[in-house]
């Protein structure tokens, strides 16, 4: 019943138009795809393609030397809203794209595609590029993961965070051995330099707050194994799940807000345990020396080089190289938001998103996923509210709760309608409002089901009445049964 509409503009540069076009340019075309999540839920995606020839200015923009320059020049010519895509088709022999790549995805909402000769080849490439730049069947299924039957999703799909109105990001420096290491990090500069641009971009999706702390004497939950060959300590992959628990107790809960917390820990191992490396399943050391925990955050181990002379005075002053650390943490942040570059076909070339850490189309990708998830959440919340009402008949729904429910239904309907029209941004806003009102209605304190007496307890109070009254009735029933039995016997005796 939910229909996702992606407007795609396909622009043919001169010399790239395939011969077997069904009709002369410009024309429109619609491609539909059905994503079924479970037996009852399915999402229809609809790509509204509009084909046209390039304008003179676009031709001029495409005439530059490299794809990156073309992308930058084309961005100025576009006037695209969120969620819509523009695909420029260039000739198969064009030198704009490097050898071996046939698809180039830019920083913004556009891509360059080699025409591939025939219409069929172009169609497959177009389908691939639009799916990469908007959403794929797995990404939609992952957002509805609590409705998908178990075992059908890969563990990677369950990694990304649930949609929420806001997130709190906490960077923690764990120093278990302050006697020998005096660790200092310039977190303020690093946050401003690396994290802030990304979050500014993501601020469309949710509110973010960032803070940091330093925890002393915080230790990991497992003792690392000593490896003689490399004279280092190793944490194997299967012990990593046990690492987080003791640290978690020290992290401090987010008492002041209800948003989910993303934790990024930088662990400086104590002197007696350094250097410390993480081993993957095959026993090879992990290059980044970091790992992440789905929907929780990431941990990076930062080894301190031993001083040249053992007599060096303790504590040893350590300045953390924040560029190295933040590179890992930002990659983990992307993973936790479900943005990964892993599933790409080899002939794709992605423009690096630059300082912002996030391309425009990746933002769209997030918005698609979160909108669908919000709609699903609202429907789940309202359904369970309805179930509660069915269970307890005499529950009181106050006017404000009722108006919140109406509001939620109206917002979710408008979100679905906006999705079907292809207005991604307004659909996302509407779905956010729907989530807020439905949660407010569901968690209203007057709807606590413990406030209402279950009927069986009312019955139990009157047991002292019912029980003695039942005794003579049961006794006389037993007597009637006995009498009827005797009467049946008597006629046989008479015979």
């Amino acid at each position, binding site marked *: 019943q939910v229909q996702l509409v992606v407007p795609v503009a396909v622009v043919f540069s001169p010399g790239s138009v395939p011969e077997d076009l069904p009709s002369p340019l410009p024309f429109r075309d619609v491609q539909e795809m059905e994503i079924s999540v479970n037996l009852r839920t399915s999402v229809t995606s609809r790509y509204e393609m509009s084909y046209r020839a390039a304008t003179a200015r676009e031709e001029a923009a495409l005439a530059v030397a490299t794809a990156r320059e073309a992308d930058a020049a084309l961005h100025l010519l576009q006037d695209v809203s969120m969620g819509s895509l523009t695909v420029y088709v260039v000739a198969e022999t064009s030198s704009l794209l490097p050898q071996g790549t046939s698809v180039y995805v830019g920083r913004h909402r556009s891509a360059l595609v080699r025409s591939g000769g025939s219409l069929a080849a172009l169609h497959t490439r177009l389908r691939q590029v639009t799916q990469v730049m908007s959403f794929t069947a797995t990404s939609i299924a992952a957002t509805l993961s609590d409705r998908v039957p178990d075992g059908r999703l890969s563990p990677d799909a369950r990694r990304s965070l649930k949609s929420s109105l806001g997130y709190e990001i*906490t960077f923690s420096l764990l120093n278990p051995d*302050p*006697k020998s290491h005096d660790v200092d990090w310039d*977190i*303020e500069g690093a*946050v*401003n330099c690396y994290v802030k641009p990304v979050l500014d971009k993501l601020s469309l999706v949710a509110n973010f*707050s*960032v*803070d*940091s*702390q*330093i925890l*002393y*004497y915080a230790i990991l939950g497992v003792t690392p194994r000593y490896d003689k060959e490399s004279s280092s300590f190793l944490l194997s992959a299967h012990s990593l799940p046990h690492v987080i628990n003791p640290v978690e*107790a*020290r992290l*401090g*809960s*987010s*008492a*002041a*807000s209800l948003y989910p917390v993303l934790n990024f820990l930088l662990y400086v191992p104590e002197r007696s345990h350094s250097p410390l490396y993480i081993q993957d399943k095959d026993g090879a050391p992990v290059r980044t020396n970091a790992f992440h925990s789905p929907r929780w955050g990431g941990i990076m181990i930062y080894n301190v080089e031993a001083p040249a002379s053992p007599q060096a005075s303790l*504590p040893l002053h350590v300045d953390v190289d924040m560029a190295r650390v933040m590179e890992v943490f930002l990659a983990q942040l992307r993973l936790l938001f479900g943005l990964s570059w892993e599933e790409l076909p080899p002939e794709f070339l992605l423009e690096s998103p630059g300082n912002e850490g996030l391309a425009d189309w990746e933002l769209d990708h997030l918005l698609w996923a979160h909108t669908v998830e919000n709609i699903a959440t609202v429907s789940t919340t309202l359904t369970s509210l309805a179930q509660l009402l069915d269970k307890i008949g005499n529950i009181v729904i106050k006017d404000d709760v009722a108006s919140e429910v109406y509001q939620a239904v109206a917002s979710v309907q408008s979100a679905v309608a906006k999705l079907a029209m292809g207005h991604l941004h307004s659909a996302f806003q509407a779905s956010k409002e729907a989530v807020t009102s439905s949660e407010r209605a569901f968690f209203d304190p007057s709807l606590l089901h413990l406030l209402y007496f279950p009927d069986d307890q009312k019955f139990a*109070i*009157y047991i*002292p*009445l019912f*029980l*003695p*009254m039942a*005794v*003579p*009735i049961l006794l*006389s029933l037993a007597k009637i049964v006995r*009498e009827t039995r005797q009467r049946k016997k008597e006629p046989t005796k008479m015979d």
Partner: protein
Amino acid sequence: LREELLLSPLPTGDVAATFQFRTRWDADLQRGAVSHYRLFPKALGRLVAALGVRELHLALTQGFWRTRFWGQPPLQAPAGAELWVWFQPTVTDVDKAWKELSNILSGIFCASLNFIDSTNTIIPTASFKPLGLANGTDHHLLRYAVLPREVVCTENLTPWKKLLPCGSKAGLAVLLKAERLFHSSYHSQAVHIRPVCRDASCVAVSWELRQTLTVVFDVFSSGQGKKDWSLFRMFSRTLTDACPLASQSKVYVDISPKNKEKELLEVTPPPTSVHEAVVQGDKKTYAVYDLLSPSLFNTSRSLNVQLKWKRPQDSSEMPVPVLHAQRYVGGYGLQTGEICTLIYNTHPYRAFPVILLETVPWYLRLYVHTLTIITKGKENKPSYIHYQPAQDRRRPHLLEMLIQLPANSVTKITIQFERALLKWTEYPPDPNHGFYVGSSVLSALVPSVIAMKDVDVEQSPLFTSLFPSSDGSSYFVRLYTEPLLVNLPTPDFSMPYNVICLTCTVVAVCYGSFYNLLTRTFHVEEPSRGGLAKRLANVIRKLRGVPLL
């Protein structure tokens, strides 16, 4: 971070150990979306920043500090939980912020502070002043609440220890072993957050977090009648090192001579230095152990401070503090009663004023016209009275008075009350235990017996820097009286069920006999006389299809 431990033998032979951990944060908590914490705990920092708190004082106490016998405490707290907070002037809805704050704090400290609501929150006008930097004392920004029923135990201590930068892994905090701390006569842990000057010029503001913990050990009874003690015997731990993050880590032992000429006690190992100070109007001598000085741990790996009395103390002469108080409930029956407060001023020649703050829950209806203050047989008129009557189920009584205490006198303050009947859902579990009335608060500037020099506040040990001392001749004291336990008329809670049971049984018995009367087959000897019962029975038998009688 500065950590201090003060060990002082009390006149009765008990030992009071007071820990204090001071963390300063040179940052403005009120501004900035991104906040970065080093030693200051993040949980509290976010709380202060988010809710616009200017000053926060939370104390959780088990037991009662006996001022009469133990002397003036360094920092007293009432039994149960006490919370008072000054908010920033920018906070628009103070009540909402207060509610939110108490809920969050109850989560952080695992205490039932979420029971703080309008029925036990008051706005004192004179008793509580901001202790940190403040330019306004608009008391509408102040909220004060006491929960006398709160029981303090290990689940409150663990989160408190977690706020320390070194946890309980290093420094003085290794002594904080819950098993021993709660095996004591008095246990009080507190958190104080206030803004202070960053330096002498006082241009910028820093935030100071002061975590204090006071325990009183009864060494006399646990040590076979001897008053000697050591760290190991009290805490079953010894000190091994200072917290590596601390800039100051000291243990003070109070070795002030009681009699002027004779040394009665000795401490081992020998202290690194001896410090003399005037604390609360009394000249005190402290043996100081500086844990940061390397010489202390040279001879042995750990520090176990021991104190031995050279000869048995003559316990006859016990010093009595200048100001102490006592409170009890008078009267009989379950309808009316009387709250009596006795305030003692034992100063030989100086009179001084004291501010008394009484909070009484609404279910004790105070009669203000019965308020009498009698000193030395004469009526004593208070120079300032602030009374806010209670509203049922909305707010408590608040009575604040400024009373002049003549030298060497006892002042008796009595006020009568009537006990209200509560609705049956308002009774707590175990209502026959009684209802607590929070301690009343006495704040006074007590003139000191000996002259005090203006000491450098930062140098003097422990709490002298928390309360501002106005001048050399007097010092600030805040005392709490005993909490009261008042019995209210309690209904028989099982009565409704009993009534249901009884009436149901009666109805059931009636029904049963009537039913039997109708359905039993009666064999009548004389067939000619068909009575009413038989006819009725025949009607029923006809309906049942059974042969008639």
